[in-house]
């Protein structure tokens, strides 16, 4: 029945005991994102948040669900747990509005990440860290255009995923002639076959934009199999993509440096709690986009192995 005083110190007795840092006042942060479990992009976010937690003595609890309604429930859940801070990715601000406002009402500082920067302050978040997917897509489109490509195939591996659609839409605004293709990430054979079929069916396609490193690896093989001259660009990295960039099979990888989207909010929340600092002054803190290509791939490769790029 108590919704007034910010449940800072008294935050439920028994649970926080485990990760008690020596510095006293422990910080419990819930990170709730819209990435599906096992998604490579969000895995890096998670690694960032957990690394920050470890370094700053905060207890970080990462949860995710691609369904906006279910994501809202996870936020409610965190509010019920009276966490000390909340980090939310807002792919679908409308659906999360009530839950985030409730969290703010309950006195929990909220940092939004990734997308939704336009609504972040309105909902009462103390900061936004991210790089909207649209801007990342625009960057990729620009680069491909600069490389002299004329027709782009944008491969969406989770139909209806708003983030992936924003990436493709972004690419469309800067590149122009973009065609989308749906594949199923869980079925690598099928994904590869469909890309192969698409480049075969339309020989004009001279660039393929994958939104996930594994799809990129599949795309490289598909293009080879189809005997097409198209080149692949991708989002996110893994060792296969790193090798492919080195060998020139992949033109570049868009790097949103999402590690920071996990890491920084924990820092911000720590600062907010211990020093009432806020960051950004109502403007988003941008993390990218960065690009990994032949020029800088060697520097970045080792971090990929660790799961931080």
């Amino acid at each position, binding site marked *: 029945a108590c919704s007034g005083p910010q449940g800072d110190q008294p935050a439920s007795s*028994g649970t926080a005991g485990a990760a008690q840092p020596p510095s006293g006042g422990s910080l419990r942060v819930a990170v709730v994102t819209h990435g599906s479990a096992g998604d490579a992009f969000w895995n890096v976010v998670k690694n960032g948040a957990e690394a920050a937690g470890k370094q700053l003595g905060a207890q970080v609890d*990462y*949860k995710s669900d691609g369904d*906006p309604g279910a994501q809202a429930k996870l936020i409610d*859940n965190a509010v019920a*747990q009276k966490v000390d801070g909340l980090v939310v990715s807002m792919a679908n601000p*409308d659906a999360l509005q009530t839950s985030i406002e409730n969290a703010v009402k309950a006195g929990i500082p909220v940092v939004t990440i990734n997308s939704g920067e336009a609504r972040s302050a309105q909902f009462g978040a103390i900061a936004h860290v991210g790089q909207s997917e649209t801007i990342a897509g625009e960057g990729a489109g620009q680069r491909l255009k600069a490389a002299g490509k004329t027709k782009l195939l944008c491969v969406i591996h989770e139909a209806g995923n708003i983030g992936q659609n924003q990436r493709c839409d972004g690419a469309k605004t800067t590149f122009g002639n973009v065609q989308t293709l749906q594949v199923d990430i869980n079925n690598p054979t099928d994904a590869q076959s469909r890309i192969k079929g698409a480049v075969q069916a339309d020989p004009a396609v001279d660039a393929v934009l994958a939104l996930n490193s594994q799809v990129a690896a599949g795309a490289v093989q598909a293009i080879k199999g189809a005997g097409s001259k198209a080149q692949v660009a991708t989002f996110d990295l893994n060792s296969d993509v790193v090798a492919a960039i080195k060998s020139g099979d992949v033109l570049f990888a868009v790097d949103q440096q999402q590690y920071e989207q996990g890491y920084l909010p924990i820092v911000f929340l720590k600062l907010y709690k211990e020093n009432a600092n806020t960051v950004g002054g109502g403007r988003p803190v941008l993390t990218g986009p960065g690009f990994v290509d032949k020029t800088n791939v060697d520097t970045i490769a080792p971090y990929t192995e660790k799961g931080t790029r």
Partner: protein
Amino acid sequence: MSVAVQAAPDERLVKPRLWDRLVVRPEIGSLLGALLVFAFFSIVTGQFLSPLGVANWLDDASTLGIMAVAVAMLMIGGEFDLSAGVMTASTALVTAIFATQLGVSVWLALVFSLIFALAVGALNGWLVMRTGLPSFIVTLGTFLALQGLNLGVTRLITGTVQVSGMRSTDGYESAGMLFASTINIGGTEFQISILWWILFAAVAAWVLVRTRFGNWTFAVGGSSLSSRAVGVPVVRTKIMLFMTTAFAAWIVGSINILRNASVQANQGIGLEFQYIIAAVIGGCLLTGGFGSAVGAAIGALIFGMARQGIVYAQWNSDWFMLFLGIMLLAAVLVNNTFRRRAERVRR
């Protein structure tokens, strides 16, 4: 005549025990499973039992529960509906597109989406009965078709993969009262979807056990040939069951759209199996003819408690599914001995 029937206790019966009577009820197993999960999380986590915590897992169970009850009825009637999951998104999309893009009042939009839902349900049922194909295949077809329509139409009309902006539509507030308001009990806000869930389960349980339609449902699921032979209107019963499922999907879709004020085109995909699972946990036989609406509602409760309980317990989310799997198996194994009893008569 009937006096002679009311004979003294039959010497062929071991003394009748309450226990034996309870044990044949299909929902008893799931009830024990639910108690187990409840006790477990109440002990290992602090917030699970707090009012806010209870409101949270009840909410999670509620929308799942509404659908699980409808799917259970359909399953008792011997059919599946794989399109049930996407239907919750389709109805929400229809409502949202009418309200935000065509500017009609939310109430009217809700009526349109209800008509749409019932039409799809009737189509499912009609196709299944008409073609004689297994409902698994037919509703798979509608599942894929709806999935494609959801995405295609949404992109066509809005250019993105979601429809938002419900908050500024006409009648949003009043319709929201019905589907998305909260009720304050002792300072905690409980979602009204919980009420819908209880109401739906109660009505379904009553219909199944107490009415003629319920009797027919069990009969067509248990043996549709025999039912037909004794004059049960098999086709009508099954079509009605499909329409009930679609109706439930409309309720859930309306709850979702009015609560979230936006809907994503790929929502609901995969949920159909959660419904089936909740129904089976609740004691329904996959082969039809046996089950209970209350059991399905409890099955959804187990799911909701386990799902949110794991979050409360702050176990590493990497292993989430592992915990969920073990939890479900444990809950279901509890009722093993009881289930067996009912299964003995299966043929």
